[in-house]
């Protein structure tokens, strides 16, 4: 088994590009997402109609927004013409929202639903309204995390979990399939090595690499990108390494059903992408048809749930041991399956 571990590390050392993929690519992606999801400095542009209440207007102008006043064409108040003009303004992107006051309240019209601009516009209006009548002010606070933490901070655990699974999955799957393709596996199995040592060697060889990768990713996001960690850095690294170990085993297992490298890649939409949905990107409690239960079969779910508990909620081992145990179960099950699969090459 030691020989196999040494060999895998040597091969990686000789294959600079793959090594770079494992080390540089996650750091690149983390940095990119840090810039994309980090502190937003966007100032929304709001166009208000002339009949807008003056008090609200004054407060709105105090917010971080750019306010323009639309001339009232006077023909109609709620006629289709006005709406068409407003929509045209939105479509040509000269404003992000058109706000008008009517007897039944304030109307906000925007270009698209589910846009990050929506939140900044409504926040500005909500704050302005609160300043006008302080009694209607609402303040939101959380048990875990803070309202003003950036998306990068609150989703960082998803990135760490998914990235550590993804790269190791690809590399172990491809390297195992290559071993089959070139006939070295057959040759390996014609030596006295035990099947369990082959799988063990693979798991540990790639495990060591993924451990290095995990440590780098955690340290980089913590100390370079300044991601806020509530709990222990080491516990987070432990969870990531275990998740990477499951990725090695699943990668090797999947390669049984692949005849070449390209077919390994075809497993990404099947194995990795569905798991990403259960990584914490979508709140699992809200999923329809009991689909949330699927998460119990997904290692990324346990990895990310564990990371979330440690990084966001600041929990210790007493709260995450269940997730850790489940990852160990996955590692064990796929380890056994891989040992059995090698019977194809030698029954002994």
């Amino acid at each position, binding site marked *: 088994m030691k020989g196999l571990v040494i060999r895998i590390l040597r091969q990686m050392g*000789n294959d600079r590009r793959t090594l770079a993929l494992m080390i540089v690519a996650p750091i690149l992606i983390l940095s990119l997402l840090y810039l994309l999801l980090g502190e937003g400095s966007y100032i929304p542009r709001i166009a208000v109609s002339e009949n807008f209440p003056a008090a609200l207007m004054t407060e709105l102008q105090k917010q971080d927004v750019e306010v323009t006043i639309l001339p009232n064409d006077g023909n109609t108040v709620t006629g289709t013409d006005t709406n068409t003009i407003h929509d045209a303004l939105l479509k040509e992107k000269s404003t992000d929202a058109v706000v008008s006051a009517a007897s039944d309240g304030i109307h906000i019209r925007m270009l698209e639903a589910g846009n990050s601009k929506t939140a900044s516009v409504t926040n500005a209006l909500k704050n302005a309204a609160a300043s006008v009548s302080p009694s209607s002010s609402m303040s939101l606070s959380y048990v875990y995390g803070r309202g003003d933490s950036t998306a990068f901070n609150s989703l960082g655990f998803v990135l760490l979990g998914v990235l550590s699974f993804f790269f190791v999955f690809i590399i172990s799957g491809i390297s195992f399939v290559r071993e089959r393709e070139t006939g070295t596996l*057959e040759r390996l199995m*014609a030596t006295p090595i035990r099947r369990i040592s082959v799988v063990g060697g693979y798991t540990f060889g790639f495990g060591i690499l993924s451990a290095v990768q995990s440590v780098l990713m955690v340290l980089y996001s913590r100390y370079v990108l300044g991601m806020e960690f509530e709990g222990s850095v080491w516990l987070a690294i432990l969870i990531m390494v275990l998740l990477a170990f499951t990725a090695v085993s699943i990668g090797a297992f999947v390669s049984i059903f692949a005849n070449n490298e390209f077919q390994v890649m075809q497993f990404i939409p099947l194995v990795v992408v569905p798991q990403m949905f259960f990584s914490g990107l979508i709140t699992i409690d809200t999923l329809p048809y009991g689909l949330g239960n699927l998460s119990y079969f997904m290692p990324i779910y346990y990895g990310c749930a564990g990371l979330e508990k440690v990084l966001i909620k600041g929990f210790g081992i007493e709260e995450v041991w269940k997730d850790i145990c489940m990852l160990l179960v996955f590692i064990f099950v796929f380890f056994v399956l891989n040992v059995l699969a090698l019977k194809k090459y*030698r029954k002994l």
Partner: protein
Amino acid sequence: MNIEISHVSKFFAKKEVLKDISLQAREGEILCLLGPSGAGKTTLIRLVTGGLRPDSGEIRIGGQKFPNRDTIKKIGFMPQDDAVYSDLSGLDNLLFFGRLFGLSGKELRRSTEDALHWVDLEKDSTKLVSRYSGGMKKRLSLAITLLHNPSILLLDEPTVGIDPVLRKSIWDRFENLRLSGKTIVVSTHVMDEAVRCQRAALLYEGCLIENDTTENLLLKTRSGSLEELFFTAHKRGEGL
């Protein structure tokens, strides 16, 4: 160590690829498996490496029922495709397989040096295999096979794609190994190579059509070429 194959059959998905094969390979002899591609040569060799199990019949090596882990240690197997790690150096390939056979320390170093010398790759041992030529890869593959000084050599088409000069020198080395008391099984579809073997077994569509000393087999032919025996078998097959 002798290899005794008795009444071995092997099926792949209901197709019988080896039909009731009985065959012996003796110590100090080179047994040549001859036959067109698809005849079952590789399957037969893989049965003797332990990679496959016969569906019926049995294989004994040195009198012991095979496969068992002790006997596997005494076998040197050279697969048809090079089966070397191209992202390792030649030396690292040898060290890896040496460790798998339980070699370590001085013994490992000495064996790798000997093997590299044997195939004349000492100069290029630290180069990555991806930069080797086809012939060099073949020689490295052969070196891996001989690394642990096995008593039995199973060589699946060892000289395919090798130029005539190198081919001759490799066969001279097989001859030396034979004289030192090894049991050698070589598969080939090059009839000329058969004359360098003591025995030849002719496989045709999974059947053993001839199995005798090369000398006797040559006497059976009119042209003095073993190919004739396949033509006869082919005609017989058409006649049925």
